[in-house]
């Protein structure tokens, strides 16, 4: 197996290519930087226009169902691709498939399909139907609603990726086509090709395909960051049998270089594990005092251009839980170096064996590019360079004043249907 590499084609498309002859499958994914967070765009007339809620997701469905050769996913599966699908989140839209055979044919169908779409109002209205059903189904998806509630507290530009039936009804095909022509362009996209194939042959194929395509505007469209402050400091919802408190920090990393953002993300992973997990002192303290049920949990991730740290626990004593969390953060620095080094060792181990699983490996590298604009593999050399003093400094430099608290309250009785 080789190392992954990033290339930029003449048309500005970023390409991640990784070959591994121990694998049977290949994975192809085209990421377009258009998601639910994109709220406005510059039209062809030069005016700033609002992007209607649900547009990116509707466009994803539309592209899948209305290529000039018919349904994209059907065409791929007819040619032995499997797992063909598409997904839109707040920041991007991905089209992807896996295959064991017919890779070249499937790549051709895939790329030529995505870039050759027929737009009509009739086609658009038909596409909308399944999304209306999707919106209806989502209304009773508790986990989805919890996530949505959390993000609403944090981001002023957050809206549900699906949109609403009302917002979708406003969308006309000409508007959709204009957005498609603006965003579905090589400089605003990222192509991943990973698995068992002849690299030279596949690279040549991809270049040949793109050489025959024409794009009206080929520019990178950058998402406008939301206001750096959280929208509301607190919120609540019902849903559990136990009271749960989630505190979410929104951390502005815009002043950091891409490399420093990438490095900070690693450090925050260590920070969360050492300070807010079942291994942490706070967990021991809160459990011994019967303040929490179960263990404290935490995670960090990039969302909307910000680092997010989420810390949660089941507790009836919200104030004491939060006071303890604040205390750990304000007194940060007492952490033992040994704990840092242990965490680092665990990370290195994880990365060492990561290539066993194609999708785990590739998705981690993709994330380096999409989240941090850092087009490189995670190397053991880099991980070895992470050090305790640098870690302390970077964490101490973080502004932890911008957070929101969500209370998921227990209900007295279960729902009628239970």
């Amino acid at each position, binding site marked *: 197996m080789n190392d992954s590499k990033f290339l930029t084609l003449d048309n500005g498309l970023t390409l991640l290519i990784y070959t591994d002859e*121990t*694998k*049977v*499958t290949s994975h192809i994914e085209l990421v377009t930087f258009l998601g639910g967070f994109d709220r406005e765009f510059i039209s062809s007339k030069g005016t700033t226009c609002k992007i209607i809620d649900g547009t990116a997701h509707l466009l994803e469905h539309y592209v899948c169902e209305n290529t000039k050769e018919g*349904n994209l996913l*059907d065409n791929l*599966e007819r040619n*032995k691709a*499997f*797992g063909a699908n598409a997904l839109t989140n707040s920041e991007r839209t991905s089209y992807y498939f896996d295959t*064991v*055979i017919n890779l070249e044919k499937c790549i051709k169908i895939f790329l030529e399909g995505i870039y050759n779409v027929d737009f009509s109002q009739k086609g658009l209205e*038909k596409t909308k*139907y*399944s*999304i*209306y*059903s*999707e919106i*209806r*189904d989502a*209304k*009773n*998806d*508790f*986990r989805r609603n919890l996530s949505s509630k959390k993000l609403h507290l944090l981001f002023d530009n957050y809206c549900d990726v699906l949109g609403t*039936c009302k917002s979708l009804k406003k969308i006309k095909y000409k508007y959709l086509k204009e957005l498609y022509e603006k965003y579905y362009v090589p400089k605003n996209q990222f192509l991943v090709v990973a698995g068992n194939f002849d690299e030279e042959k596949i690279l040549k194929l991809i270049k040949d395909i793109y050489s025959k395509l024409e794009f009206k505007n080929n520019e990178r469209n950058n998402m406008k960051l939301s206001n750096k402050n959280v929208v509301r400091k607190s919120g609540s919802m019902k*849903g*559990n*049998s*136990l009271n749960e408190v989630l505190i979410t920090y929104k951390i502005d990393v815009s002043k950091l270089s891409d490399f420093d953002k990438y490095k900070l993300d690693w450090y925050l992973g260590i920070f969360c594990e050492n300070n807010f997990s*079942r*291994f942490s002192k706070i*967990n*021991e303290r809160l*459990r011994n005092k019967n303040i929490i*049920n*179960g*263990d404290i949990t935490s995670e960090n991730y990039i969302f909307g251009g910000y680092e997010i740290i989420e810390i949660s626990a*089941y507790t009836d004593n919200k104030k004491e839980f939060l006071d303890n969390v604040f205390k750990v953060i304000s007194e940060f620095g007492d952490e033992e170096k040994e704990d840092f080094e*242990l965490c680092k*060792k*665990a990370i290195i*181990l*994880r990365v*060492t*064996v990561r*290539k*066993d*699983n*194609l999708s785990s490996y590739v998705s981690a590298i993709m994330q380096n590019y999409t989240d941090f604009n850092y087009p490189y593999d995670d190397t053991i050399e880099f991980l070895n360079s992470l050090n305790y003093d640098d870690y302390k400094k970077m964490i101490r430099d973080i502004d932890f004043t911008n957070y929101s608290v969500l209370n998921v309250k227990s*209900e007295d009785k*279960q*729902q*009628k*249907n*239970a």
Partner: protein
Amino acid sequence: MKRFNKNNDSVIFVNKNFKRCILYIIFPIEEVDDFKLSILEKMAFDKSMNYDTDKKIRKVNINNYCHSYHGKVTSVGDSYFLEIAICFPSYNSLGKDVLADNLKFIKDIIYNPYLEDGCFPKRDIEDIKKIIKNKVVRNFKDVLWYYEYKNDKLLDERGYLSNEVLDNPSGLDKITSKDIYDLYKKIISGNPLIFLCGDVDENKARKEIDDILLDGRKGMVSFEEKYFNYAKNIPSKIEKVIEECQYKSSGVFYNYKIKDIKGIYDMVLLRTVKCLISSSSSEILFDTLRKDNDLVYRCGAYSYLTFGSLTLWAFTSKKNIEVTEKLFLEVMEKISDIKFISEKLPLIKERAFLNDEILKEDIWDTLMEMIDKYIEYKEKSYYDYIKDITALEVKNFIDKKLILVSKYIGVGEEDE
């Protein structure tokens, strides 16, 4: 009922394609109590007397280069097992052999569990009960989960598909930490089955497992192979349950059972029928409901292959329940057409062949495939069964053996 009876010599699958190795240990469970097992799953292998805090566990795992370890209750049909698995890098990827260190850790975790007053810590047991109950409450808020749960209850026979914890979570209250510990002691007093998969030196690994882990625990492993619990109840009239619900979406479920099940052969045909309805080789249900009629976002089919049932399902709006039901029957009519079957069957076979190849890429899939054969649950892969099946056999199965037995309709609120 057939019994599994084999010596617990460690079973080693050498595979040099992977950087990781997995050591996988299972203890058969004879006493099956949903309440106790749901707690035991979270409590077992958590800590030991030597590693009595999470921090110590973490430290020893990292120093042993343990990539991950977990314990859980697993089942094949009605045969239950307490499972513990540990994952670590191979010598060739790390430059160091860590099997022995990980064996010592696993042995301590299994046979020297952390106890307070001679039992699992009461506080931990009470916490686990609360968290399980919370999860049940959350599940009931999820329309996708709820409708499937209610349908399974309708389809069920002898409690095979149901779980008492979901039906009555307050049943957890009476379980004590002594109950859990007594159950645990009983389970681990038996001999385990041990499997190792990865890039290992087979002879060296076997010796280390024998000396360190098994250490006098070599002997027979015996349990009833209750893998298949075929549905027998074919009612004379189709049972229909309609439930008014507060969810926005409505759910439509149609259940089929097999008349006079004749073992694996029928299960292979059942799986093939499922693929005809809903798979990457044939999406007739999806095409009919979504593409042609704009009725759904999601629909599909699933089968319980150790029970012998097939379910068609769809989430739709209240006003479209009837038309969805009508189209379910049309789909079943279409799939019994010999021309349709003849067209799709080669695609299904080809996909099954490719799936066998794809499984080899993942160490867990590779391991599970080997174990299924070793415990005599499967003799061969789905492709090996299906490759010689004819379209006529599939048609006869659909026409003569697949019987519609029940319907569950969850009527939601929203009409749009």
